């Protein structure tokens, strides 16, 4: 699962701490999601996308192609 949280944070001029406080998680959780170490639950993913007022697909992308494959 890829995400553009870092991009949206930059667009809204937010730090990881700001976003974490706004959606009620720890800064470490935001960092882990951004780095792909942790896949958030559907509930948290919706909360993040709603905070940025965009659709969930714009923030999170399901990466279904294994590495090294494709046309």
């Amino acid at each position, binding site marked *: 699962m890829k995400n553009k949280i870092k991009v949206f944070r930059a667009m809204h001029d937010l*730090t*990881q*701490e700001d976003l974490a406080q706004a959606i*009620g*998680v*720890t800064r*470490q*959780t935001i*960092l*882990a999601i*951004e*780095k792909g*170490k*942790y896949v*958030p*639950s559907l*509930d*948290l993913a919706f909360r993040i996308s709603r905070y940025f007022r965009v659709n969930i697909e714009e923030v999170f992308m399901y990466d279904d192609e294994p590495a090294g494959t494709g046309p």
Partner: protein
Amino acid sequence: MKKNAFYLFMGSIALILLAVFWYSVEIHNPLFIEVAFIVGIVLVYYAKTRVTDLIDDERSAKITEQAMLRTFQVFWVVFCAFSIGAVMQILYVPQFPRDYLANKPHELLSPKLMGYFQLSLLCLMIFLYVGFRIYYARKYGDWETDEE
């Protein structure tokens, strides 16, 4: 209650429990430490609900859940294996009791010793849990650093 105050409270409870444990040993009454242990743990759980600056989000819940699951998966197998051994010794009825009592074989682990072993396994479970917790915290990015 602040997070640091909670940690201080937890430390105090641990020290009190240690004192009660020694008192129980002195008066040779296990009831004191048994009741004190339950009361102490209930107090800690209650105090944890009153902490205002401790964020327990879904990632930390998942780390705890995974660590607990793996600890139990390892623990129950080892615990049951040794417990079955103890039950086998208790249930054993010799075919020729007179011969058995005359030449009683040396028991590798007596039921009493098995009890101590089970107690030590319970204590080791704490270390096993801490180990798994460190592993999963690392897996889910607890010690990741960033430019911020």
